[in-house]
C-alpha cells in the first residue's frame, strides 16, 4: 500500500513533468531551439489560472484562460523574438531565453506583486480518498487523470492529424517539409504556441498545490531538461515514458532512500546523506543513460 501510494505520487509528478517536456522536446527537436524560457510559460500559466480562478470563482475557467493565454504568449513570443534566433547558434538561444526568464519574473512581480498567490482547489476535488487506510488527496488523482488524457490527446494529434503528420515530418527534415510547400513559419509558430499552452496547462494544474510566485519555473525547468535528455530529444513518446520514469525514480528515492540508508549506516549520517543522495538520483540516472545510449532511450526514428 505504501508502495502503491508512492507510485501514484511518482505518476502524478511524472505527468506534470510530461506536460512541460512535450512542448520543450518538440521545439528542441524540430527547430533545434534551446528554450530556457519554457519554465516562465509554466509560471505565467500558474499566475493566469490563479488570478482568473480567484476573480471568477471557477477553477476550470482559470485553466481555460491559462491555456489560451499561454498559447497567445507563446505565439507572440515566437513571432517577436524567437523566430529571429533560429539561424543563430545554441549559445545565442541560451542567452536570449535566459534574458526572457528575467523579463517574465520581473513582469510577474510587477503585475501580481512579490507575495505568493492563493489558489483554492475546486470544491468538487477538495478532499481525500481512502486508499486502504491512507488518505490520498483527491486533487492528485484528478491531476493523474487529466495528465493521462492530455498524453492520449497528444498521441492522437501527432499520429492521426495532418498537423501531427507535419510535425513528424518536420522532426525528420525541416528543409524538405518547407520545400514541399508547407508554410514552415506558421508551423513553427503553432508548434511553439502548443508547447507554451501545454506548459501553461502544467502551471495551472500545479497552482493549487504549489506556491504561485515569480521564479517558480526555474527549478522545474531543470528537471524537464533531464526528462528530455533521457527520453531522446524530439520524441514526444520518449518524453512521456521518461517523464514517468523520472517522476517515479525521484519519488521513490525521496521516500525510501533515507530509510534504506538508515539500515546500513548511523541515523545521523543517513539523515544528512539521504535527502542529498535522493535529489541526486535523477541526475545519476541521466548520466547512466547518456553513457549507455547518448541519443536517449526512446529517440525519434530518423
Amino acid at each position: 500500500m505504501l508502495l502503491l501510494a508512492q507510485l501514484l505520487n511518482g505518476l502524478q509528478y511524472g505527468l506534470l513533468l510530461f506536460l512541460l517536456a512535450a512542448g520543450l522536446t518538440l521545439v528542441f527537436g524540430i527547430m533545434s531551439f534551446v528554450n530556457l524560457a519554457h519554465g516562465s510559460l509554466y509560471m505565467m500559466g500558474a499566475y493566469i489560472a490563479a488570478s482568473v480562478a480567484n476573480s471568477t470563482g471557477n477553477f476550470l475557467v482559470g485553466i481555460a484562460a491559462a491555456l489560451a493565454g499561454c498559447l497567445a504568449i507563446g505565439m507572440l513570443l515566437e513571432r517577436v523574438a524567437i523566430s529571429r534566433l533560429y539561424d543563430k547558434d545554441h549559445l545565442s538561444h541560451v542567452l536570449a531565453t535566459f534574458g526572457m526568464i528575467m523579463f517574465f519574473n520581473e513582469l510577474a512581480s510587477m503585475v501580481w506583486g512579490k507575495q505568493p498567490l492563493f489558489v483554492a482547489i475546486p470544491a468538487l476535488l477538495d478532499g481525500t480518498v481512502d486508499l486502504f487506510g491512507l488518505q490520498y488527496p483527491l486533487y492528485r488523482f484528478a491531476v493523474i487523470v487529466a495528465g493521462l488524457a492530455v498524453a492520449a490527446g497528444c498521441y492522437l494529434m501527432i499520429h492521426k492529424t495532418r498537423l501531427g503528420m507535419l510535425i513528424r515530418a518536420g522532426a525528420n527534415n525541416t528543409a524538405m517539409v518547407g520545400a514541399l510547400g508547407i508554410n514552415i513559419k506558421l508551423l513553427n509558430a503553432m508548434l511553439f504556441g502548443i508547447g507554451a499552452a501545454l506548459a501553461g496547462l502544467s502551471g495551472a494544474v500545479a497552482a493549487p498545490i504549489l506556491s504561485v510566485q515569480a521564479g517558480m519555473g526555474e527549478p522545474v525547468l531543470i528537471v524537464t531538461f533531464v526528462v528530455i535528455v533521457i527520453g531522446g530529444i524530439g520524441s514526444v513518446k520518449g518524453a512521456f515514458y521518461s517523464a514517468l520514469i523520472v517522476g517515479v525514480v525521484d519519488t521513490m528515492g525521496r521516500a525510501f532512500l533515507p530509510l534504506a540508508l538508515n539500515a546500513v549506516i548511523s541515523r545521523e549520517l543517513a539523515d544528512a546523506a539521504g535527502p542529498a543522495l535522493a535529489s541526486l538520483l535523477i541526475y545519476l540516472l541521466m548520466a547512466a543513460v547518456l553513457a549507455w545510449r547518448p541519443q536517449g532511450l526512446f529517440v525519434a526514428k530518423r
Partner: protein
Amino acid sequence: MNKLANMNSVLCSIALAALSAHAQADVKIGLSGPFSGPMAADGQEYIDGFSLALEQLGGKLGGQDVTVTQGDDMMKPEIGSQVMRKFIERDRVDAIVGLGYSNIIMANLRRLKDSGVVSIAVAGGPSPMAGAQCAPNVFSIAYPNDGSGEAIGKLMQDKGYKNVYLMAPNYQAGKDMINGFKRWYKNAVAAEVYTQINQTDYSAEITQLQLAKKDAIFVFYPGSMGVNFIKQLKQAGVIGAVPVYSTFTVDGTNLPALRNAALGVVSGNTWNPSLQNPQNEKFVRAFEAKYKRTPGTYAANAYDAAMLLDVAVRKVKGDTSNKAAFAAAVKAAGAEFKSVRGRFSFNSNNMPIQDYHAFEMVQEGSHFTGRLLATPLSNHKDAYVSACPLK
C-alpha cells in the same frame, strides 16, 4: 496601479532623502536582503518595515537626516559579500541593516566584525554568531535561529506529546531549529526527516509521514517552502487530524497565500500582528494602511531596527564617527527603544533577550490571523551566550 503608486512614493522618499543628504552630515544606512528572486517577498518586508519606521520618525534617525542605500543579496553568499564590501568600503555606511539569511550572515561574519560597522540582522542569528564568533558591533534584532524551536519543544513537552514526527529543510537553519526543539523536548522522536532546500513537491515525504506512528508533528518550512508544504499537508488531510506545530512556517508573508489551509496550525514566533501592546498596534495599523497587507515578522523586525537606531543615534548625539561608541550605544539602546514585541534587550552576546510565543492560526471573519496560544519561554536567553567572550 496602487502598487505602482506605492512603489513610486517609496522611491521618491528615498530619492528625497538622498538629495537632502548632501546638505549636511547625516546617518548613512545600508539596507541589504533578498530583494529579487524567490525570496523577494521576504526582502520587500525588510524595505517596507524599515521605510515605515523612517517615515514615522520624520525621515530622521535620532534627529539626523538619513540616507538609505539598498543592496540586493539575491540570497546568494557571493553576491551578499559584494554588497557588504560595497557598503563598508565605498558607501562608508554608519550601519548595515538586514544582512539577509543565515547563509549570507555566515559568509560575512568575519568581514563585518573586522570593519567595526554596526550591523543588525533582521532575519536570523546563526549559532556561531551568538557564540564563539560574536562581535561587539554585530547584532541580531531577530532571534537566535533555534529560539522558537526551543519554545515549541518546551510547549510540546509540557503538553505531554510522546512521539513527535520532525521535518525541516536540509540546511544549517533547519538543523539548528530541530536541535533547539530537542533541547527542550525529551520524549521519543517518531522520525527526523530532512528535505532538499527549496523543494516544491512533498508528496513522497507526506505519504511516509501519514503512515508513520506519531501523536504530533513539528515542522520548520520558512517562506514559500511553507506555502507548498502546508498546502500539500492540508490536501492530504493531515492538518485537522494530527496536531501540527511549526516555527516560521506560517506568518504574515505567506498567510495570504495559505488562507484556510493553515487553520489550526500552531506557529512558534517572537511576534505576530495580533500581539497586544501600544507600539505594535500603532505599527500594524500604519503598515496595513500604507501597504494594504498584513506585515510579516521581517517587517516587524526591520521596523524595530529603525526604532533601535533612532535611540542609539540620539545617545551619541548624532556623532556616529566613533564606531565602538556607536556600537555600545546600540547595545544600550536595546533595552530602551520600544519594540513591537514588548519586552526586549540585548544579552552580552548581542542576541535578544525576549519572549517566545506560540500562535494558533484562526479565522476572524474573512481575515486569517494568529491567536496567542502560549508563551512557553519568557525573557529567554539563548544557549550559546557562554561561548561568547563579550561582557
